[in-house]
């Protein structure tokens, strides 16, 4: 990673097939994909003296969806906010440990947080398009802000909207305000905005919690499509959503990572009794 310049975007080969053999844990499977790997090593995140995330070591594998589940207040949102250095924007917070993108610590000396956020995009719980901007400008905004506008802005906006599965629905009203779209469309617009800058990783923090069931399923389908090109981590309260979309699932409790394993395993035969109790609704 170069310093203070936008270095974290690199040429990438789109991976459209998955030929990895079955595995029993997320850590046991090799991969040669070009999408980037995120590794959290002993990550601890503080609000003042309170450690909301405590010593979490976790991997987001390239071209996979990693779901993070756990009860409210378990630290899952804080954890993903550390991954693109948003946590430090809150006064009184600090982070210990490392977050590595393909082996390079994004908290290393001289690393520009803005470059980190360009490489690691975020989609939030509530769709938050820029309300006064048009659909087109909402997507173009990220490109303009990160200096990636280039001469083919129209093509890049279209590619991002296509990537978010929204192009056919908005191609005739690109000049209309983004806030005029439905909730599900607004969220896909935000995803388009996030992927327009060609990040390596997309973080999603409860991206469907404000959407109706049909819009939720549309986003989930989109996540499945996007994972071929991006490393995706999704925080969700909806365990069935994790079961539907995630390759692996991490369960957090009281700031600690309890268990991270293949989603199939988490939902059929988890190793830790606390995970078992949570997913079966025996506490929470």
């Amino acid at each position, binding site marked *: 990673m170069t310093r203070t310049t936008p270095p974290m975007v690199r040429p990438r080969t789109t991976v459209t097939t998955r030929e990895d053999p079955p595995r029993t844990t997320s850590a046991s499977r090799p991969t040669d994909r070009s999408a980037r790997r995120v590794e959290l090593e002993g990550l601890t995140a503080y609000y003042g003296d309170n450690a909301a995330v405590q010593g979490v070591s976790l991997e987001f594998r390239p071209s996979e969806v990693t779901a993070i589940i756990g009860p409210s207040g378990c630290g899952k949102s804080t954890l993903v906010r550390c991954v693109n250095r948003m946590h430090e924007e809150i006064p009184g917070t600090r982070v210990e440990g490392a977050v590595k993108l393909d082996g390079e610590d994004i908290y290393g000396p001289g690393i520009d947080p803005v470059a980190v956020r360009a490489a690691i995009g975020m989609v939030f719980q509530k769709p938050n398009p820029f309300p006064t901007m048009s659909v087109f400008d909402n997507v173009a905004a990220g490109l303009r802000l990160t200096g990636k506008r280039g001469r083919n802005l129209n093509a890049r906006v279209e590619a991002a909207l296509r990537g978010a599965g929204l192009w056919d629905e908005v191609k005739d009203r690109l000049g209309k305000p983004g806030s005029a779209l439905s909730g599900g469309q607004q969220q896909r617009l935000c995803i388009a905005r996030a992927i327009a800058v060609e990040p390596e990783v997309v973080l999603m923090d409860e991206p469907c919690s404000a959407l109706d069931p049909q819009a939720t399923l549309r986003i989930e389908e989109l996540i499945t499509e996007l994972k071929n090109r991006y490393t995706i981590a999704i925080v969700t309260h909806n365990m069935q959503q994790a079961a539907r979309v995630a390759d692996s699932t991490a369960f957090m409790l009281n700031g600690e990572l309890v268990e991270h394993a293949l989603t199939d395993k988490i939902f*059929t*035969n988890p190793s830790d009794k606390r995970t078992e109790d949570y997913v079966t609704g*025996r506490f929470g």
Partner: protein
Amino acid sequence: MTESRTDFHGHLGELEEEALSTLELTSTALDQAIEAVLTRDTELAVMVIDGDDRIDGRYLDVHQGVLNLLARQAPVASDLRLTAAVLHTIHHVERMGDLCVNIAKMVSLMGEPPPGSEEIIAKVEAAGNQARDQIRQAEVAFRQRNVNLAENLVSQDDVIDRLNRQIFREAVEIGGDDDHAREWGAHVMLIARYIERIGDNTVDIGEQIAFVVTGEFREFTDASRPGGVSATG
């Protein structure tokens, strides 16, 4: 922390109870079917045949209940395993009920036992008692989530297998040139075979018990690969 899916877990518990209490019905049906064979009691045999409707009704109830749970409650982890095991178990129970009917249907076809058939009849009774004990053992193992007791069904089932082979040999021998004796022997072979299949079904239920407890499905025995085989290879 508090239990947050009490209604769902209540329904799942009720389905398990219905499946296991149906297992008790098959135990009774088997006892009655064997008694009907031993005493040549055609009325008792008809009771067994008619009583199978009750077992079939329980099967339909549990089957529908499991589908409802899957559709509405999306069980996971140990709940999912138990849900699947209950569905498998009620299927095995229904099959055992049918096998009891098959045994009962032999009563009206067999007629008087030929001379020298006492030992064969005693072995049929012993096999029937053994199968009934295995049904009860499967029920207890399920209720207790007792994997050792479940696995023990394999060695228990060996007893029935041996009796089945012995009955086959002796039934062939008793036939001789006597048409009636040969026919009687053929019916006894079928009865022994039905009992042997009931025993196999108890072992299958035992495998479901181990799956619920351990999370790994493993065949205790495999006819093509003696020594057992794991679903995960």
